[in-house]
């Protein structure tokens, strides 16, 4: 992924910079948010908040990290804050409720027909607790390195490795259970 460099950062018009960032990173931030909240609507709302936050904190960006890393940190923190928030815990959004089984709602047949292997894997990943889900997502989907993960999530590299290993064990077990019809 090509980086927006410090040079482009000199642009005076903040709104224009944000626009460029949205062009470049909008889609991945939306997907990242989705990987945390598992709902299209909430992910879109959070993406809005994230770019707004980014706009308001641009002056704090010191150029120590890459702009993209910085944006991702904001995004990850924001998603986690949302998951911890009172709102999330106390208000059940009818739209998110059935999101795991959206396919089933859309089409009854799909509940009967065995789900595609890929589908199952993704579904199980989305059911993992956040701390396991995020490492799987960032490592395998975004193909980030352990080091990058450590920076983004704010843990040391060994913790990340352990978590990855644990996540895979959990997933494997879930998938085996599925096969055995449990």
């Amino acid at each position, binding site marked *: 992924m090509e980086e927006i460099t410090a040079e482009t950062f000199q642009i005076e018009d903040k709104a224009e910079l944000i*626009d460029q960032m949205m062009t470049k990173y909008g889609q991945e931030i939306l997907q990242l948010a989705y990987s945390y909240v598992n709902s299209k609507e909430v992910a879109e709302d959070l993406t*809005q908040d994230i770019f707004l936050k980014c706009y308001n904190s641009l002056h704090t960006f010191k150029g120590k990290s890459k702009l993209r890393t910085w944006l991702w940190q904001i995004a990850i923190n924001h998603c986690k804050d949302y998951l911890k928030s009172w709102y999330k815990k106390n208000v059940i959004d009818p739209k998110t409720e059935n999101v795991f089984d959206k396919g089933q709602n859309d089409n009854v047949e799909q509940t009967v027909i065995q789900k595609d292997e890929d589908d199952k894997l993704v579904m199980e990943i989305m059911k993992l607790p956040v701390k396991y889900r995020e490492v799987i997502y960032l490592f395998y989907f975004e193909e980030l390195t352990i080091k990058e993960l450590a920076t983004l999530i704010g843990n040391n590299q060994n913790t990340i490795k352990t978590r990855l290993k644990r996540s895979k064990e959990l997933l494997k077990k879930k998938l085996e259970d599925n096969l055995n019809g449990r």
Partner: protein
Amino acid sequence: MEDRLKNLRHSMDKTKFNQLNFSDQLRKKIHKRIEKQNESKESIYLAVLQLLANKKTGYDLTKLLRSRGIQFFEEDEGNLFTMLHSFEQNGYLLSNWDENGAKHYQISRRGKNLLQQSEKNEMQKRLVVKQLLER
């Protein structure tokens, strides 16, 4: 397991992410929110200048802002003082300390001119706020 996970990018694009799209609509919504927020910031800056037509302490100012229904600085008074400081640095406000150690602020001639400009027309409000914030 490892292989299947290595393939995750592909499977997720196919299953979960095909419904996700960072649309123009979403982009526009974000721009709109930024704009709206900036507008309200602008009116707050101008309200501060207006309220400082007479000498006031920062504390008095927070009370007056609250009574105008401006909640921008609620629980974040520090921000107000940062703002007052930069206005002062830029010469839009005058200040002095009284014997109790409280700092009083008042609009300067320069600030008044600026305020008048902004009251003349809406379009200029933008420029004025830009001026206020620039060093």
